[in-house]
């Protein structure tokens, strides 16, 4: 009996010592941050993960090309059964709002992790700097999307380390803007030039300069109103113009055909979101450019054009702001629709305006087949040289008034619109901005010109906000629609009717986020 007792004690003691080892298991399936980021290749994988956010459905893969960013005076969401930010009746738990917030912070954390590990591998220092520059810029760009949509936001510049304490308060918008500018400015010197990169999908120096100009313009306008930033915007855009790397594509429509066909034109298209493939196989890197926005084509069988929902139809405001000789009009707003299984185009009558679809992105030009109904390979522009020229003109006008340089910049855009940049064009000044405008008139001209050039590219709503005219513009457009749209399309006024200020100048902090982060506060009137 005693013997057994001792035997038991001995065996238990033996076990206790070996137990410790027995219970140590090491993961062999997934990667651990501890043993990763050791090579240049691994850093590039991490960088891909940061870029990935741009193409997600909740960002430019779907949301920001038709439900958010297009909810302005250029068009309306042509499906009445959906609620959401496109008609300004979204709630604090709106999925588009929540997902955008989630994805942007996800990208920021991915960037934080990479930046903290940037010095781990032994590698070429120049290549390391290029990677760091892209990561810093993308992180700042995600903060730019956050601050322009939500105002004050938590500013987190280090990777989240533990599930323990995760509540962080909002930082004032101006601090976030200043961080964005200093980060982007630092990144600007790290990345390669546009010419060296050679295609619009990767961050290049011109892209950063142009986005910096945009950031400065937003800061100069509402709600920060730091007008000193006009001068910085002018400097950044001038830097691009003077680099000699960029020029407008002589054909406005070719710019968009290029996106459909996955062709790059780094001179015009400085930065674009890359979409790829049709979801055959493992990758789902297609987007909804051309599917959400495009001429509706909903035949599922024998449809060679490709399936198009056609969520965005135009307003008369935009349509009528074009001169009939402006070549951009009938490309940006298709004058026809598809009939008979999508094989025939039938023109709208002259009075059918609100019926017309956004036509900038056209699936019939796509080269990847078979065409998926939900995923297209078309790229989406984030910075075009035309925008750079218009930003320059705007900033120059604010700083120095409507100078010749300002006129020159905007007129380049207009001449292309009238087909005057093609070889052998005559009467090249036919579409030029009238000479001798005052500073305000010139500024107003630019406001309309930006819409004519950049409509449906997700820039209009923030433009109207920074100019302080979102509410007034939307109300007057709604009145126009109520008066002039056919009865079945009068609902197009819903967005304008629903919009109230200051509530809709910012998105609501997602209800989910407020629920789990007690340090957060909600935006005004939400």
């Amino acid at each position, binding site marked *: 009996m005693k013997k057994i007792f001792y035997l038991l004690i001995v065996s238990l003691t033996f076990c206790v010592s070996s137990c410790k080892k027995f219970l140590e298991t090491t993961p062999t399936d*997934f990667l651990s941050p501890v043993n990763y980021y050791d090579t240049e290749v691994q850093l590039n994988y991490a960088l*891909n993960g940061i870029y990935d956010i741009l193409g997600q459905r909740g960002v430019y893969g779907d949301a920001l090309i038709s439900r958010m960013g297009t909810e302005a005076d250029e068009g309306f969401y042509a499906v009445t*059964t959906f609620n959401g930010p496109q008609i300004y009746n979204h709630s604090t738990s709106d999925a588009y709002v929540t997902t955008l917030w*989630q994805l942007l912070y996800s990208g920021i954390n991915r960037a934080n992790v990479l930046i903290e590990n940037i010095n781990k591998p032994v590698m070429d220092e120049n290549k390391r700097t290029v990677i760091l520059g892209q990561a810093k810029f993308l992180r700042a760009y995600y903060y730019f999307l956050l601050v322009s949509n939500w105002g004050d936001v938590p500013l987190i510049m280090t990777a989240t380390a533990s599930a323990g304490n995760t509540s962080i308060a909002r930082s004032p918008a101006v601090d976030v803007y200043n961080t964005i500018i200093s980060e982007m400015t630092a990144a600007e010197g790290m990345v390669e030039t546009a010419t060296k990169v050679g295609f619009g999908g990767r961050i290049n120096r011109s892209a950063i300069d142009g986005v910096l100009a945009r950031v400065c313009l937003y800061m100069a306008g509402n709600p920060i109103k730091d007008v000193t930033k006009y001068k910085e915007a002018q400097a950044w855009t001038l830097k691009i113009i003077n680099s000699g790397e960029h020029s407008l594509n002589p054909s406005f429509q070719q710019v968009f055909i290029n996106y459909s066909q996955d062709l790059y034109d780094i001179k015009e298209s400085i930065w674009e979101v890359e979409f790829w493939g049709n979801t055959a196989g493992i990758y789902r890197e297609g987007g909804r450019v051309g599917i959400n926005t495009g001429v509706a084509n909903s035949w599922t069988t024998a449809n060679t054009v490709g399936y198009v929902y056609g969520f965005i139809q135009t307003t008369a405001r935009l349509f009528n702001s074009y001169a009939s000789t402006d070549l951009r009009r009938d490309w940006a707003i298709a004058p026809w629709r598809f009939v008979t299984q999508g094989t025939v185009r039938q023109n709208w009558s002259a009075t059918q305006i609100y019926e017309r679809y956004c036509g900038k992105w056209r699936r019939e030009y796509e080269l990847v087949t078979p065409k998926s109904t939900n995923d297209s390979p078309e790229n989406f522009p984030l910075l075009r040289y035309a925008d750079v020229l218009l930003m320059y003109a705007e900033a120059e006008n604010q700083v120095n008034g409507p100078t010749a340089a300002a006129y020159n910049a905007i007129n380049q855009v207009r001449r292309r619109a009238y087909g005057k940049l093609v070889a052998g064009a005559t009467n090249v000044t036919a579409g030029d901005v009238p000479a001798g405008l005052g500073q305000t008139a010139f500024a107003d001209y630019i406001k309309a010109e930006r819409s004519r050039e950049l409509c449906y590219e997700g820039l209009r709503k923030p433009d109207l906000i920074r100019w302080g005219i979102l509410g007034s513009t939307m109300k007057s457009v709604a009145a126009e629609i109520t008066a002039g749209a056919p009865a079945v399309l009068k609902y197009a006024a819903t967005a304008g009717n629903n919009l109230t200020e200051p509530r809709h100048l910012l998105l609501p902090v997602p209800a989910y986020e407020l629920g789990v982060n007690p340090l957060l506060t909600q935006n005004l009137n939400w």
Partner: protein
Amino acid sequence: MSAATLAQKISLSVHKVPLTTVFQQIRTQTGYDFAYTGKALENASVVTLDVHNDDLKTVLDRIFATQPLEYSIEDKLVVVSVRQPMLIDRIKPNISQGNQMTIKGIVTDRDNLPMIGVTVKLKGATNAVITDIKGRFSMNISTPNPVLIFAYIGYATKEVAVTDKSEMHVYLEPSQNPLDEVVVVGYGTVKKADLTGAVAQVNMADINKAPVVSFEDALAGRMAGVKVASTQGQPGAAVEIVIRGANSLTQDNSPLYVIDGFPIENPNNSAINPNDIASIEVLKDASATAIYGARGANGVIIIETKKGKQGKAVVAYNASVGIQQVNNKMEMMSPFEFVKLQFELDSTTTKSQYLTGRTLDSYKSEVGYDWQDQIFRTAPMQMHTLSLSGGSDQTKYAVSGSVYDQDGIIVNSGFKRYQGRFALDQTLSKKIKVGINTNYSYIRTFGRVASEVGASGSASSYLLYSVWGYRPINVGGDLSGSLIDPDIDGNNDFRVNPVISTQNELMQRTTRSLIANAYANYQISNDLTLRITGGISNQMLRTDQFFNSQTVQGTPLLPNNVNGSYGSVLFQETNNWLNENTLTWKKTYGEHRLEVLGGFTAQGRNINNYGSQAVNVPNESLGLSGLDEGTPSTVISAISQSSLASFLSRVNYAFKNRYLLTGTIRADGSSKFSDGHKWGYFPSGAFAWKMTDEPFMKSLRFVSQSKLRVSYGLTGNNRVTDFAYLASLNLPALNSYSFNNATPGKGVIPVTLPNSELKWETTTQLDFGYDLSLFSNRISIIADVYQKTTHDLLLNANVPYSTGYATAYRNIGKIQNKGLELTLNTVNIKTAKFSWNSNFNISFNRNKLLALNDNQDNLQTPIVWETAFSTNPLYIATVGGPAASFYGYQWDGVYQYDDFNNSNGVYTLKSDVTTNGATRSSIKPGDIKYKDLNGDGLVDANDRTVIGNPIPKHTGGFSNNFTYKNFDLNVFFQWSYGNDVFNANRIIFEGNALGYRNLNQYASYTERWTPANQSTTLARIGGAGPKGVYSSNDVEDGSFLRLKTVSLGYRLPASFLKVMKISAASFSVSAQNLITWTKYSGMDPEVSVQNTALTPGFDYSAYPRARTISLDLKVSF
């Protein structure tokens, strides 16, 4: 009958006196009392008797020989009752008074296995014989009207009157005295009378009456406190067992299974043939489960399989052959109603599509298709088990094999199992005994899971959507002959012939499961036993899928199918190993009884998953073997492992056999947590007081047992992924980015937020129990009340998105379950020929969330079934409320004309009438209406509220066993009361909320609002309001009462068996799911297609439960 009884001497001399006088005199002489009713003595004759110093029995026998009465002696009471007159009549021709005769017969158990060593005794005499190795006996009798008494330990003693049959066949039932039964508990057994914890036992005889593939399928409603929810009727569908309510919000709530001593989480229970199971016990309270420590919090189900018995080899064959049918189809619209509806939805298109050259009325004569008739079928099922068992006093063995083959009631679905088992027990010496037990199963389930979300994430990609919604009439093309509807130009609407597609899909899961255990018992001394066990379980699951061009997934006719014909093969292998070493010491000192158990166990598990997919397979006729010619696509590889080391101990102490104490403790060390948090300690204690044995209870002779139990203890839950506490990175294909049009480069992303503080989830449970048995156990009641509080919930908690993550495992939150369980077993009628026993059980459980993450006051959970609804949560768990409630708008019927201002036929909603969430100007009469709870004039997210309770108020079962002569009948009811079901089918098929054209609807939708039919609550077509919102309109009462099992059996008489040279045979006819009483409008109220603690009771495209009728045969040789 004790010897003292017989020793009582009586002298008596009476002449023609009434019987009662004789009783009085005997009482005076012996002190024995007589119990009878006046009615019983109505036909009694007067008594003439002269006895001298004879014993009581002899005297009584002589008195009753001439009376139409019989008697029995219980304690000091002579019970007098009327003798069955019929019996006498039938005996008379063969057995005349004083004639000697030989009675032969066989004794078997319920399974028709011969019983050796049964004592057969002539009633009222001393002659007795014992059955031989074949269970046979033979006895010479001269007594008139002989009655034989059959007795065997552990079995109920049975009295059988001898009839004119040349050979008797007697069945013995396991002991009716439940107090003598032995109950298997963790690491040992205990007499039921000595149980201190709450342990429920399954009546295996009842379970085996249900023609089911797995024991789980028959468990529902059998035990109080054990909720068995089969999610739907698919063959091989998951059965979710939750004991005493869900403890864990986001983690697994299924119990721990201990199969022949081998604890396994989430085993494949259909690997075990129910015929091989000897017993199932369910451990419910902390005292019973704490011995399983970190895995005990969800309760423990202990399964013991059958072992060999000493005796001649017995070959037994059981067969069931049956058919299954769908219980309940949905009634769909007729062609006329369908076209009428299309016209209301879109008159222009409908005119050109359906009304070119014909009128609407002409559709009245069209019969049309009911696609349900083509997808549902009457499906056969069969099961065969052949077993061989026997043994000597040294060696005992049991070998069995079975085949189960079931076709599903939906075409191209089904279940097959080939299973074999071998158990061997060998006594090596007086002190050493060893044994092994192995089970191997090959299981194949096939067919599309009806409720499985399709590739598109849309409501239209589910199987029953395509069945119900497919058009009922041809227009132009032939719908039944082509894969896709030639006339549909719908909006992202996968309209595919469900029959052709389903028949062409290959979706099958093949499981190979091996469980092998071995043990060695060493009796170190009289008091001390060492037991060492070891075992492995290996499960290989292979999932094959192949979709050719004739399937919805693979057809090139839909432009979205960019993968062409494609297929995949995935292997998932799970290995478990276990070693357990326990010492048991038992000793009795006078009135003190002590039993101490101590042990050490180690267990390990590893999981390997490997598989790949190929798309655009050019030669689809080759099926899976053609994958190599396609384009390689996804490749899956994943491995993981975990280990668990434990020390355990239990002390049982009994004083005077009245006061019972049990204390247990287990220490578990798990690899799933980081250093410093690996070990958890789980103690428990219980006390039981057997009042029956107290002097003050002795006088209450009708009380057979009265026992109070109380227990308290801690148990744990460790169900997290193996490395949940570590940070991890991943390279998902979805997080890639393409530069310069190149093949996307994968992105490495952080996927889990580390938490080095992660530890066990702990449940404390207090249980009060009372066991009462009355009238020689004819009535027994078990009642338990309990309160379980689970804290440090292993919550996959929501974290702020600003962290870059959505969830992280944290020990946060608290949940409580309180409940009452009642079990009532009664022997309602028991005579020689007829008996009726019943079991009734009912459970009440209240679930309450006490705390969540930090100051989070609710947790909302969406259901993934249709993209438009994907972001609106259907479920809410609120602190202070249950873990799951339906959440949405309160439905308020439809808008009527008087809600509108009418201006020349244009109706605009009055400004004081609330919207339904859609744009005010778009709302029309007949549109769905919701309540504006906050009164701001419009219905939006702020008007959502709790709209239903998916958790039942009580559940239970009522089982009845009747036997009459050779017949037996089992009738089993099961119910659930007070729970709601969310019937999402109605969103699509009773209102067409997604607005699809050419989509057929339930016939009930003919009652929709139209200008001609305004007195209705069903919205007009197109009036379903804003997309993607849930409302109380689709919440239905899911209470039901189901006649779950009916089984009528007949045992062949011995005379017949002898001719056939078999020892026993019985036939039965059984039915499952025969009748269901419910108000639920869907196919089956017992449904929960996405069952978790947070999302119970959701119905969309559920595979309906089949009604099964089978013929069963049991023979043994």
